[in-house]
């Protein structure tokens, strides 16, 4: 079980470090992605495009290093849920938006939703492990 948790922690963390780094590299493009979802007020788009990739990279690294793992796994799982919600919302409204997930121009669709759902499952395992670990050490 410990191996499963360690693997999920490393994979989930690495996915966010990778995705966050790509978004950091093209923050203006990521801002355009966020704007397209039409979920945030236009004035908050740039701020979100600056801070979200940093949160992804910092929490991803923390999770991989097993430091502040509970906080990092909760933040990243919540982010993943938000992304899935935003995609579902965009699809329900028929918006033709790029996912903005890993840079590039992949359109939002069933495929991106399923991929993110799988990543979320890995994240939930990582979160469960992070909390279980604390119990073991301190219980």
């Amino acid at each position, binding site marked *: 079980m410990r191996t499963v948790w360690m693997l999920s922690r490393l994979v989930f963390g690495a996915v966010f470090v990778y995705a966050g780094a790509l978004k*950091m590299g093209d*923050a*203006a493009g990521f*801002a*355009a*992605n966020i*704007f*397209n979802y039409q979920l945030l007020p*236009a*004035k*908050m*788009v*740039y*701020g979100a*495009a*600056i*801070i979200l*990739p*940093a*949160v992804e*990279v*910092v*929490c991803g690294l*923390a999770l991989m290093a097993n430091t*502040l793992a*509970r*906080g*990092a796994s*909760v*933040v990243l799982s919540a982010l993943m849920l938000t992304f899935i919600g935003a995609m579902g919302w965009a699809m329900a409204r028929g918006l*033709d938006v790029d996912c903005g997930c890993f840079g590039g121009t992949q359109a939002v669709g069933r495929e991106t939703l399923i991929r993110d759902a799988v990543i979320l499952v890995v994240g939930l395992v990582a979160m469960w492990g992070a*909390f279980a670990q*604390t*119990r073991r050490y*301190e*219980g």
Partner: protein
Amino acid sequence: MLHQVRRPAWPEFVVLLIISVMAAWLVNVGRPEPLPWWADFTAKKVEETTRKGLAVLTPAEAIAALKADGQLFVDARDPDEFAMEHVPGAVNISADALLMGLDAAVSGLAKDKPLIVYCGNLACPKSRDLAEGLKASGFSALSVMPEGMEGWKAAGGPVEGQ
């Protein structure tokens, strides 16, 4: 007796947030052109268009222009998007023409024809890119509608297509 002590998780959120904000700030100031933390994305996109020396039309102005004679709308999106819906009477010159050879794509157009270029929405760069290309190849009466098809529909503009 089982006695379980658990550190609360919330200080971890605070620490991660502080580090994230600091990292975000550092990365942003390190960019050649730092992004503003708080700025109207819409206004910024329009400003980028005017900065390139292109005239800008709001959807309402563009709707008024549709009713005037002699204006030609140029849809810079891909052919399949154009086929789905477009401004009535618009021609489709995909921004890809910039790579494939713009001169061939605009061979039938007079250089002094008033053109209004648009694409999907504020976030898409195609209308600006194509208008710049058209300007460079000698078209003189160019305008861009940065809000694109989305803004056009939101302002109640008529739509033609499948």
